[in-house]
């Protein structure tokens, strides 16, 4: 079985859930090897082994994090050239896609982004993408080089499959050419205490219909243990930070349950949530396009509906 690379998505060694998903998908293609870039591999090792990484390549050097993606792509490309894996899976975040793009050029390989499924097929690695705001499903394959696939969060349920997870340090030298876009300042985002938007099983979002007050949306989210999202109209009005925006130019979410409150359902918003398993909306306009998508909808004022629903949920939880 060929070796399949999974680029680990982590913050200082704390591995994000998408990596477990990628390792699970990688096992369909061959034997997963995790590629860990940066510091903290020791704290990541147990997680990576649990989800099936036979090896963990560790690439650690200060330059890898002092500059924007180019050094990471360079180090990864070298490892790909020497190990010749059967495929490289990367999470389809802004940074992941940039690394994937550079890797494609460096290794002369085809690239597929925003995949929602990956499997071994007759033509090699086959992928499914959800395109045109989720209105079409496309199956594709890579025909040249090492298939590089950027996979969206929540594309598979992480399944444990214990493996050795042996750490294998790899020496890296970064060229001056890769050290040109310097990160001069980094302010970590304050934790909200809620699940991460792209990883959450339930997302409760608010739009212009909140009128700027997200307290009812947040209270309802908390009753369900959900992440909070927002439409661009709410973000542009300064009511909620951009990092919580759902849609074409925000995050794509694909949770078990998505609840849209005071959101009309514009195509660009749908692009970020249309693949959610169950969709619920609260909107006072019965003609709102969001109702075309829903499994359950309430035509009504969210200021009345949400507090009542929150109380009821809290009561049922006992």
């Amino acid at each position, binding site marked *: 079985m060929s070796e399949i690379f999974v680029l680990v998505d982590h913050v200082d060694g704390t591995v994000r859930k998408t990596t477990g998903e990628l390792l699970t998908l990688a096992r369909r293609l061959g034997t997963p090897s995790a590629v860990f870039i940066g510091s903290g591999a020791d704290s990541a090792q147990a997680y990576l082994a649990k989800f099936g990484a036979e090896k963990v390549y560790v690439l650690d050097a200060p330059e890898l994090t002092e500059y*924007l993606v*180019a050094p990471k792509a360079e180090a990864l490309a070298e490892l790909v050239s020497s190990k010749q894996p059967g495929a490289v899976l990367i999470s389809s*975040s*802004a940074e992941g*896609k*940039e690394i994937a*793009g*550079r890797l*494609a*050029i460096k290794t002369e*390989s*085809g*690239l597929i*982004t*925003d995949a929602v499924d990956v499997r071994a097929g007759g*033509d090699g690695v086959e992928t499914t993408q959800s*395109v*045109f*705001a989720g*209105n*079409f499903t*496309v*199956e*594709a*394959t*890579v025909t040249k*080089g090492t298939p590089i696939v950027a996979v969206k969060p929540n594309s598979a349920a992480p399944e444990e499959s214990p493996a050795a997870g042996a750490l294998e340090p790899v020496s890296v030298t970064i060229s001056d050419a890769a050290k*040109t*876009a*310097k*990160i*001069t300042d980094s*302010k*970590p*985002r304050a934790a909200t205490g809620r699940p991460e938007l792209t990883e959450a099983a339930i997302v409760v979002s608010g739009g212009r219909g909140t009128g700027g007050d997200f307290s009812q949306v947040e209270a309802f989210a908390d009753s369900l243990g959900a992440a909070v999202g927002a439409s661009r109209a709410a973000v542009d009005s300064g009511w909620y930070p951009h*990092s919580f925006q759902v849609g*074409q*130019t925000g995050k794509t979410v694909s949770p*078990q349950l998505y609840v849209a409150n005071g959101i009309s359902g514009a*195509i*660009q918003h749908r692009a970020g949530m249309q693949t959610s398993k*169950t*969709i*619920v909306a*609260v909107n006072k306009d*019965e003609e709102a396009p969001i*109702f075309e*998508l*829903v*499994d359950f*909808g*309430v*035509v*009504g004022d969210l200021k*009345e*509906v949400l507090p*009542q*629903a929150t109380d009821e*949920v809290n009561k*049922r939880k006992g």
Partner: protein
Amino acid sequence: MNIVVCVKYVPDATADRSFDSSDSTVDREGVDGLLSELDEYAVEQALLAAEDGDGEVTVLTVGPADAADAVRKALQMGADKGVHVEDDDIAGSDAVATSLILAKALGTLEYDLVFFGMSSTDGTMGVVPTMVAERLGLPAVTYGSEITVDGSTVTVRRDGDVATETITATAPAVVSVTDQSGEPRYPSFKGIMAAKKKPVEDLTLSDLGIDASEVGLGAAWTKVLSFAPRPPRSAGEIVTDEGDGGTKLAEFLASKKFV
């Protein structure tokens, strides 16, 4: 400061976009095209960055004959001249080939900075800016929500997944711009009239020294095996709030085991 802005001509996202069943590429016949809305933000930032200098803003597109519309729109907004790479052999190019054509076209132009949108509204890959930077060996400062150009230094604020970062590079460099960077201007009447006289250079693959076998559908390193419309969602249950909407909502969630 001379700036090139790369813009894409795309099918209107609010229309019914589809695929051409003969070759699985985007159906450009059935739907009107336009300048990708996200590239308007790049044009705006390029115009602002060039405002108090004596440089020029050149708008560059790779696309079919109608893509001239996208160039014209950017000229109406205030760009000085246009370059349109058009060749039948380009049809069906993947991201790798598109980045090759853009890199070669940039090789014929003089620039300090190259501006891009954060992603197109059709392919939405968000990889072309970095791929072009990779090919040209240029620094790339990407997903800028705030762009500052000071002499030959470009600085962007980038609202990443886990942190807000400040990133700087020295020209020549590639910059990509998000829709958080500031509303793009509308073309003024004066701008629309002036655009008619602005020069647009048409280039073909042979002008750029690219062999037809390097680009287009046949040369793509990825292949579409099939495409299908997403099955319509089955109609859901819709209730009107009569004082019990919240309770009904909670009951639905409980019936689906979310509570």
